[in-house]
């Protein structure tokens, strides 16, 4: 009999939308892991196929990793010289860690997601430090000191995986309207199941890719 509550999937779905799949996965895995690895294994079995990032994070936990790998040094170096930064893909644990390293940089978040997200609620957490911009108008942030930061999830050869909104943004026009296009591998682990919610993207689309080679 499952020890997981019936509302778990709904709760994870909401959290994945408003925290990011990787941030939510680590939160859920860490909380369940307090009561033992068996619960984490069950979480992976129950939700892993639906949420591949959660599957990968649960696997990391079961292999002994106890926290997300959040090293902002390389990312902040890749964003050096920027006066504006537009994040594509929400991952709160990672963005929260990066923000103190972005003093003086205006930070924006693309308010587009495959999940239903209450963007007002998400952005309210940042108290004006991060502002929202939609697909129709994000190019007004283009500039010689503007950087795109794209959250990615693992790497397979020359490909990485990212959220579909990146495909709505990337193009030869947009690539040349931003000083740097930085990919940040927030998962830092391979995915074992079909990466639903995500799309493949060539690592070569990024001017800098921060993550394991």
């Amino acid at each position, binding site marked *: 009999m499952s020890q997981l509550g019936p509302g778990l999937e709904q709760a994870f779905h909401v959290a994945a939308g408003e925290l990011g799949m990787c941030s939510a996965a680590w939160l859920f895995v860490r909380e369940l892991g307090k009561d033992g690895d068996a619960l984490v294994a069950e979480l992976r079995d129950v939700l892993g196929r639906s949420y591949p990032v959660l599957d990968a994070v649960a696997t990391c936990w079961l292999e002994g990793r106890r926290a997300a790998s959040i090293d902002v040094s390389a990312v902040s170096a890749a964003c*050096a*010289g920027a*006066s*504006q930064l537009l994040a594509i893909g929400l991952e709160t644990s990672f963005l929260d860690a990066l923000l103190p390293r972005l003093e003086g940089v205006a930070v924006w978040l693309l308010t587009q997601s495959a999940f239903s997200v209450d963007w007002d609620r998400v952005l309210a957490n940042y108290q004006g430090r991060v502002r929202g911009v939609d697909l129709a*108008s994000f*190019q*007004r*942030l*283009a*500039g*010689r*000191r*503007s950087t795109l930061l794209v959250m990615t999830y693992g790497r397979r050869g020359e490909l990485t995986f990212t959220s579909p909104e990146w495909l709505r943004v990337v193009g*030869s*026009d947009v*690539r*040349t*309207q931003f*000083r*740097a296009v930085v990919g940040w591998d927030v998962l830092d682990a391979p995915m074992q199941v079909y990466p639903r919610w995500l799309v493949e993207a060539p690592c070569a689309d990024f*001017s800098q890719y921060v993550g394991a080679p």
Partner: protein
Amino acid sequence: MPKPPHRRPTASSAIIGFIDRPALDRLLVPWVPDAQDRAFVLRCLLDEGPAHHRGSNYVLLSLLGQLLPDPVEVAPGPSQAVPMRLPPHLAGGDDAVFPLRLPTAILERLAPRDSPAFQAMIDALIDGPPQHALANVAMVCLLSALLEARRPE
């Protein structure tokens, strides 16, 4: 009638293979001193558009670079910003220009500064996708320095 021999197009990897990116990076230092600005310009010149444009940009700029004196002197003078190609309703930000400016004094050899032809030349040089516009501008930068070096004392 015998068929003409089939000529296989040059592989794009062969074009990409001859590009010496660090050499082009060094060449542009006098006009784009900031390394990250230069990385942005180089990305537009060498990583965007069809492979033959990337290769052509490298060849033409490198050959022009070989004509330059060492060290190169970049004379201060009037210049024109190169705007990014943004949808009109989203354009207008002061920062939405590439970090390489078009020197315009050299164009006075071809048309008076306040003439419609002069403005049309500027427009022709800075319009188009960045791999064209920035290559044009970089070539004008090199040509300006070259002609300046040849000017009689």
